[in-house]
């Protein structure tokens, strides 16, 4: 399957959104709202629930299931207050020593005058730094599109899972094609060049697991995903905090490619 076909699958309107996974995976849920600073961004949903007998915090980027919802959550592009809401819930999880599970599905952080006025760049930057030092396990699942900094803002995790057609990219292939070749129609070529698929991410060491998609049997798929999440959370919870944080730091520290002469 070509990278661009996977991207199209990841963007498909009928694809399950974060809310579907949250409802299928976590029991005894309480949804929590607001960043306590400015507002409540509908593009970020979060709360507390139970997974495999353990209380966890869940956070997801929500695209919306129908047009009305999509407009309310601006098509899954979080505002600065969304990232701050996510950070507030993560800090809360740290205080009460419960793991965090994030779901990523966005074409990118919200791009607009109001987002810039409220410090979109700072909001993402703070999440990157704070997540790196958060003293509790974090697992992120990319369920659809992993669009640039907006996706990274919830992806500084101990483990990254990706659905088989999910993608992660520094720039949209359309944006890349129009900058490099002045032609957005060459997006399929750009998608290949950028290496955005889940399998690419596994090869780069950006992702640990690729999860098969079985949307026709969503319940079954979520039962398997639950088992994978529980297994990894158990592994992570056995580590002491210093080891957990050092391994998380090193997980990102080694990423990149350069020549080095001695």
């Amino acid at each position, binding site marked *: 399957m070509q990278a661009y076909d996977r991207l199209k699958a990841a963007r498909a309107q009928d694809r399950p959104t974060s809310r579907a996974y949250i409802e299928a995976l976590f029991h005894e849920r309480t949804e929590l709202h607001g960043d306590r600073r400015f507002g409540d961004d509908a593009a970020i949903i979060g709360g507390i629930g139970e997974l495999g007998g353990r209380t966890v915090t869940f956070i997801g980027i929500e695209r919306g299931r129908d047009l009305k919802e999509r407009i309310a959550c601006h098509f899954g592009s979080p505002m600065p207050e969304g990232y701050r809401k996510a950070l507030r819930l993560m800090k809360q999880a740290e205080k009460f020593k419960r793991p965090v599970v994030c779901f990523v599905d966005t074409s990118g952080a919200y791009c607009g005058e109001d987002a810039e006025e409220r410090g979109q760049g700072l909001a993402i*930057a703070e999440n*990157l*730094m704070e997540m790196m030092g958060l003293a509790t396990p974090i697992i992120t699942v990319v369920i659809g599109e992993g669009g640039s*900094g907006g996706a990274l803002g919830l992806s500084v995790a101990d483990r990254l899972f990706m659905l088989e057609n999910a993608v992660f990219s520094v720039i949209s292939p359309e944006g890349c094609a129009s900058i*490099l070749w002045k032609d957005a129609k060459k997006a399929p070529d750009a998608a290949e060049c950028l290496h955005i698929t889940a399998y690419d991410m596994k090869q780069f060491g*950006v992702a640990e697991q690729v999860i098969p998609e079985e949307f026709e049997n969503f319940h079954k798929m979520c039962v398997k995903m639950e088992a994978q999440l529980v297994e990894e959370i158990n592994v992570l919870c056995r580590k002491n905090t210093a080891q957990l944080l050092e391994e998380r730091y090193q997980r990102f520290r080694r*990423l990149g*490619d*350069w020549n080095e002469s001695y």
Partner: protein
Amino acid sequence: MNRMIGLFKRSENKPEAGGMMPAAEERLKCPVCKSRLRKIDIKHNKMVCPECGYHYRLNARSRLKVICDKDSFQELFTNISTSDPLIFPGYRKKLEELSEKKVAHEGVLCGTGTINGYETALFIMDPSFMMGSMGSVVGEKISRLFEYAIAHHLPVVGFTASGGARMQEGILSLMQMAKVSGSVGKHSQAGGLYITVLTDPTTGGVTASYAMLGDILIAEPGTLIGFAGKRVIEQTTGKKLPEDFQSAEFLLKHGFLDAIVPRTELKETLARLLRQHGAKEVHHAGL
């Protein structure tokens, strides 16, 4: 005095080449006030237009000259160079062209030096190298600098200038944002001071990571600072944006900067802040 001008006539604002002093009569036309002044006079004014205060962009070497004490800078991590991990079309050729032109070694210059005698680690991004875009080398060098600063109990002064992540390195460039932010966090945890000086332009992934994570955020007048590009926002929202949108002045007004400091006062300001945070004063031959 109009300091908002960094936002206009972007094409005329090319980073000024370092090195030789210009010939006595060579003149530069200011893109803002249109004065035709002798380049040597502008250069003596730290590449700030003496008439209107317009700040020309500086490459990393020129920046070093206006900030660091003479002969105090010791460059670090010169053994790291760019690879082409994705074998991205045109990337290798672009790198070779840049290498022939000898514009800069890469998008960032790292090292240690003194500012009016106060010792600090420094990184200076170079807008003349692929618009200061952040790839693996930029990320790796800055991460190493913060780790070096932790080991040597040094503050970090960082000059940002970047068009954002370098798309030719794909996801690896995006991951540099997380990596460097992690290193900044470790330095901060260890009690280290990090002063960011945002210079024109600071955008995209650099704004959304280490540019915004300083303990103290300073910008030069008229600096463009933003996450999403102005044109992209106008295209997406169909709304005309105010002229000062994403300028340093705009960010100061909205509470996202500590101060705007003209280049002519920057060295004094940095030295004062370093002293007030306990930076070590050293004397060396160059002072």
